[in-house]
C-alpha cells in the first residue's frame, strides 16, 4: 500500500486543487497537464514498453479530435458522444497502419508514423467540404466554467494510468516488454509478436484519440495545423515520454509536468522576469528579449530533447537512482 501512497496524495491534491485555487489560468494549465499525461502514457505504452517509437502521435490525437469535431459540426451530435468515437477512430486509423508497418524492420514504423502524421494533416487541409480545410472547425462549448472539463480529464487520466498499470502487470505487459527486448526470442517463446504489437498500438492510440476528442470539446476549435502539429504534438509527446522516463508508469506524469512548466516558463517570458528588467532599466534589449522568449518554447523543447537524451537517457524516473547519488555526492563534496 505504501507504494501507492504518493500517487494517492497526488490524486487527492488534484481533486481539491480547483476548489481551492479558482483562477482559471491555473485550472487551464492543470487540465493541459492531465491531458498530456494521457497522451504521454499512451505513447509510453507503445515506445517504452513495446519498443516501437511513434514520431507521429499527432496522427492519432488529430483523428480523435476530428472525429468528435465533425460529428458535432455536421450532425449536431453532442461532442461527448463524439469522445468515444474519437478513441475508436484513432484506433481504426492505427489498425491498418500497424498491420502494414509492423511486418517491416523496426525503424520503418517510426518513420511511417511521421509520414502518417503528414498525410493526415494534408488530407485534413485538402478535404475542405468535410473538414473546412485550413479554416478549421468551431463548435459551441458545452460548459462555460472550466470545472467540468477539469474533472472529466481527471477521470480520464486516472483511468489511463490504471489501464497502463493493469496492462503492464499482466501477461500483456510481459509480452510487450519481451518484444521490446528481443523479438526473435519472443517468437520462440510462443508469442505472436505482430498481434501483440497491434494490441499495444490499439490500446495506446485509443487513449490518444480520446485525449484528442477531449481537446476538441475543451478548446471548441481545431484546425489541421494545431491538432496534427508535428512539433507541438508529436514531438511534444515524445518529449513527455522521455523526460519522465520511458518504460515507467509515472514517468509520463513527470514529463507532462515539466513540459507544461517549460512551455509556460517561456510563454510568460520567464514569468515576466525580462519584462520586469526591461521596465526597470528602460533598456529596449530586455523588452525585445522578452518578446522573443515568449515565442521560443519550441526552442526550449528542442534543447530539452537534446539534453535529456544526452544526460538522462532513461528519464527522470528511470534514472532517479543515478540522479540521487549524483546529488548526494555533490552534497558530500561541498
Amino acid at each position: 500500500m505504501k507504494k501507492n501512497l504518493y500517487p494517492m496524495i497526488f490524486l487527492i491534491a488534484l481533486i481539491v486543487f480547483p476548489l481551492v485555487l479558482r483562477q482559471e489560468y491555473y485550472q487551464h494549465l492543470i487540465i493541459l497537464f492531465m491531458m498530456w499525461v494521457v497522451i504521454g502514457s499512451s505513447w509510453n505504452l507503445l515506445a517504452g514498453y513495446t519498443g516501437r517509437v511513434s514520431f507521429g502521435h499527432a496522427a492519432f490525437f488529430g483523428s480523435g479530435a476530428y472525429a468528435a469535431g465533425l460529428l458535432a459540426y455536421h450532425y449536431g451530435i453532442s461532442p461527448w458522444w463524439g469522445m468515444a468515437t474519437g478513441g475508436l477512430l484513432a484506433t481504426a486509423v492505427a489498425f491498418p497502419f500497424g498491420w502494414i508497418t509492423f511486418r517491416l524492420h523496426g525503424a520503418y514504423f517510426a518513420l511511417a508514423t511521421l509520414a502518417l502524421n503528414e498525410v493526415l494533416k494534408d488530407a485534413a487541409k485538402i478535404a475542405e467540404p468535410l473538414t473546412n480545410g485550413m479554416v478549421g472547425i468551431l463548435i459551441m462549448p458545452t460548459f462555460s466554467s472550466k470545472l467540468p472539463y477539469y474533472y472529466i480529464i481527471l477521470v480520464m487520466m486516472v483511468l489511463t494510468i490504471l489501464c497502463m498499470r493493469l496492462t503492464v502487470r499482466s501477461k500483456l505487459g510481459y509480452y510487450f516488454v519481451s518484444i521490446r527486448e528481443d523479438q526473435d526470442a519472443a517468437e520462440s517463446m510462443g508469442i505472436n509478436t505482430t498481434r501483440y504489437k497491434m494490441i499495444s498500438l490499439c490500446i495506446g492510440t485509443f487513449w490518444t484519440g480520446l485525449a484528442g476528442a477531449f481537446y476538441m470539446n475543451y478548446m471548441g476549435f481545431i484546425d489541421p495545423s494545431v491538432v496534427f502539429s508535428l512539433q507541438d504534438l508529436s514531438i511534444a509527446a515524445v518529449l513527455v515520454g522521455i523526460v519522465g522516463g520511458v518504460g515507467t508508469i509515472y514517468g509520463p506524469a513527470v514529463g507532462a509536468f515539466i513540459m507544461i512548466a517549460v512551455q509556460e516558463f517561456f510563454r510568460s517570458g520567464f514569468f515576466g522576469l525580462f519584462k520586469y528588467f526591461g521596465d526597470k532599466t528602460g533598456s529596449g534589449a530586455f523588452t525585445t528579449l522578452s518578446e522573443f522568449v515568449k515565442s521560443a518554447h519550441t526552442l526550449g523543447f528542442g534543447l530539452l530533447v537534446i539534453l535529456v537524451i544526452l544526460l538522462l537517457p532513461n528519464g527522470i524516473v528511470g534514472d532517479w537512482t543515478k540522479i540521487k547519488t549524483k546529488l548526494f555526492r555533490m552534497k558530500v563534496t561541498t
Partner: protein
Amino acid sequence: MSFFRAENLVKYFGGLAAVNNVSFEVHQGEIFGLIGPNGSGKTTTFNLISRYHRLTSGRVIFKGQEIQHLPTYKICRLGIGRTFQVVKPLRRMSVLDNVIVAAFARVNTMREARELALQTIEFCGLLPVQNLLAKSLPIAWRKRLEIARAMATRPSLLLLDETSAGLNPTELLQAIDLIKKIRDNGTTIIIIEHIMHVIMSISDRIHAINFGQTIAEGTPQEVAQNNAVIEAYLGTDYA
C-alpha cells in the same frame, strides 16, 4: 506414427545451398545429436524447423502434423522449444521475468505463470540468480536461462543449440546433467554440439552433416568410426 521427421530439407540463400536434402527422424524420448563442422548447416536446420527461415523445399512433420508452413510462435505452442546459439536473453528483465514470459505460453494468469516459472527455475538450478537482470548474468548462467525459458513453454521436443559452448569443465558437467535430467523428465531432445565428447556421451543417435548434406547417421560409436565424418572433421589425411 513417427514423433518427429524432417524430410528432404532444402534451403538456398541466394544461389548457395546451406542445407541440401537433409532427412532424419527422431524417436520419442531420445537425445538426438546433430553434428558437423563449422558452417555445415546445423543451426540453419534448427532455424528451418522453428521457421526462422522459410524452407526452399521439404517437409517437417511433428506428431503427424506438417508444420513447415506454421509461424514460429505456433511451432512453439505445438510443443517444440528451442535455444539460440547466440543467446537472446530479455536483457532488462529479471531471470524470473524472462521465464514468466515463456510460461505464459501455457497459462494465462500471473499467479499460474509465476508458479510454473519458479518450478522451471528450480529445475534448471537458476534459483540463486532469479532476481538478477538477465543482462548482468555471466555466459554459463545465460545459457542455462535459455534452457529454462524453452522448458517453461512445456515442450515435448527441445532443440538445444550449442548450450555448452564457452563453459568451463565444471559448468560443462552441470550442463550435461541438466540435459540428461530434461530427457529423463520425458522431453525429447535434438542437440547441436561442438564438443565431441559431450555429444558422444549423451546422444542416443547422431546425425552428421557437412556442406549441408547428410554424411552419416547411427549410434555414437558407428558415427565416430565413419570415414566421411573423420574426413570432415580432421581432413582427408586421417580418413
